[in-house]
């Protein structure tokens, strides 16, 4: 268990007619059927409120589904709790828009949070991490090229660095799936590319299934071989990013593209 090498096996994600209805009556997802094969990098695009976040957060049970079934590596997500839910979640790393780091503690301690699922309660309460887990965390930091900051306070890092720490935390879980919920929405364009390249490298080198939410279409097309377009809680496009033309995006966004939908300088006038 010492090397932070490739996770055991990649895992597929299946949505079967999934619906999510929030307690306030709002519809999160409607009849979503989706099959993300093991080892794929899928990018979910859509306007805010289209259900991208709900889709991603339902995969690890952060958002409970109201109907249908989601399976991760053949295991159903709905209705799990306690030990079984934690087991499932330990296979699924997550990266958040606002990084979600504990800002006042060290980068290393943040990455070690990815090992909590494999750590005895008494060890985590007194902070007595196993040497193997510390080694694993250091290797995860090396993979995102930020190991030099291991003992810095997380809150003192720049946004891009913090997001890479968050990716290292997800990697430290030795996950089979990584979910990234708008991972570049709080970052500037060059940093966004660094983070997206990190995610792509993790997908290609470790074979981890990666699902990313993005708002920006040019980024989505650049990094996503598989593109999932969402609108009003439904999947309205599912296919190769290279084949998604202007009309497809009009379909997803319900209007023509504007400069606000692309990250870098406008791709077309």
């Amino acid at each position: 268990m010492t090397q932070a090498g490739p996770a055991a096996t990649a895992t597929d994600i299946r949505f079967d007619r999934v619906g999510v209805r929030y307690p306030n009556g709002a519809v999160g997802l409607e009849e979503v059927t989706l099959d993300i094969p093991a080892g794929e990098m899928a990018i979910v695009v859509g306007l805010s409120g289209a259900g991208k976040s709900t889709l991603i957060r339902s995969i690890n049970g952060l958002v409970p589904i109201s109907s249908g079934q989601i399976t991760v590596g053949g295991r159903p997500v709905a209705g799990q709790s306690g030990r079984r839910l934690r087991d499932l979640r330990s296979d699924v790393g997550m990266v958040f828009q606002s990084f979600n780091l504990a800002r006042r503690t060290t980068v290393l301690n943040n990455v070690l949070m990815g090992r909590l699922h494999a750590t005895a309660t008494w060890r985590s309460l007194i902070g007595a991490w196993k040497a193997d887990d510390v080694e694993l965390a250091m290797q995860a930091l090396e993979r995102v090229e930020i190991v030099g900051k291991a003992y810095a306070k997380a809150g003192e890092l720049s946004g891009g660095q913090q997001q890479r720490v968050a990716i290292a935390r997800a990697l430290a879980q030795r996950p089979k799936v990584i979910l990234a919920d708008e991972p570049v929405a709080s970052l500037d364009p060059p940093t966004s590319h660094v983070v997206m390249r990190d995610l792509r490298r993790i997908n290609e080198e470790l074979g981890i299934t990666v699902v990313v939410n993005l708002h920006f279409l040019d980024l989505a097309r650049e990094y996503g071989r598989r593109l999932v377009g969402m609108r009003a809680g439904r999947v309205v496009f599912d296919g190769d990013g290279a084949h998604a033309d202007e009309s497809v995006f009009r379909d997803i966004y319900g209007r023509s593209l504007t400069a606000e939908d692309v990250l870098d300088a406008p791709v077309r006038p």
Partner: protein
Amino acid sequence: MTTVAPAPTTRPVRPRNAWKAWLTLAIVAGITVWTGFAIGVDIPGLIRNAGNGLANLIALTQPEYGFVGETLSWLAETVQMAVIATAIASVLGLPISFLASRATNPSRPFMLAVRAVMNVVRAIPDLLYAAVLVSVVGVGALSGTMALTLFNLAIVVKLVSEALDAVDVGGQEAALAGGATWPQADRAAVLPEILPAFASQVLYTFELNIRASTVIGLVGAGGLGLLIDRVRTFYHYHELSLIILEILVLVLVLETVSSWLRRRLTG
């Protein structure tokens, strides 16, 4: 500034609600006068008998400095009681605070039960704890320390759980999403965020203790208060004056140090 083209709307009429302020003032004044009569405030009587108190007041402005030697051991006991009570209450209060905050305790009924118990603990005044404990444990510093500990526990849990309610739970969400249990996520992701606030509240509690520990001595619970009670009973106002001066100096010094430390912690 020509770009701003406001919608053509009429200006609102200034609302006339000054009468509300006058009504509030009249009600407050009425209540004050009524309570004054109810408890029998007798201002002419106060003026007639002013001479009696004057001699005592003059004595209180003339400390008997020769008395210092006798007070030192009591002064030390007051500080010791405050330190021990703060330490015990902080160690017990930290985990209870996590149970009493909706941000860190996933079970709402459990959280509300903890809060209810702590509300009862906080509702009882420190002087009452001291009086009861003196009759159970006996006169001296032990009963005083126990009384202060209960009093402190209630304060620490109240203040720290409120700080926890306002904490950024992003790290906790990430830890839970990675398969951690709630206690693990709270310890790893929330505790580091709350530590400066916790240390600051502990220091504040310690400040309160110095003052509180002089008062609870009056009912026999050890410390300077016990000495105050003794000299007061024998009308030794010059000595009482010195003790009050000592308390003033002690409180000022400790509060200065403590507030400086707290500024550094939370700044």
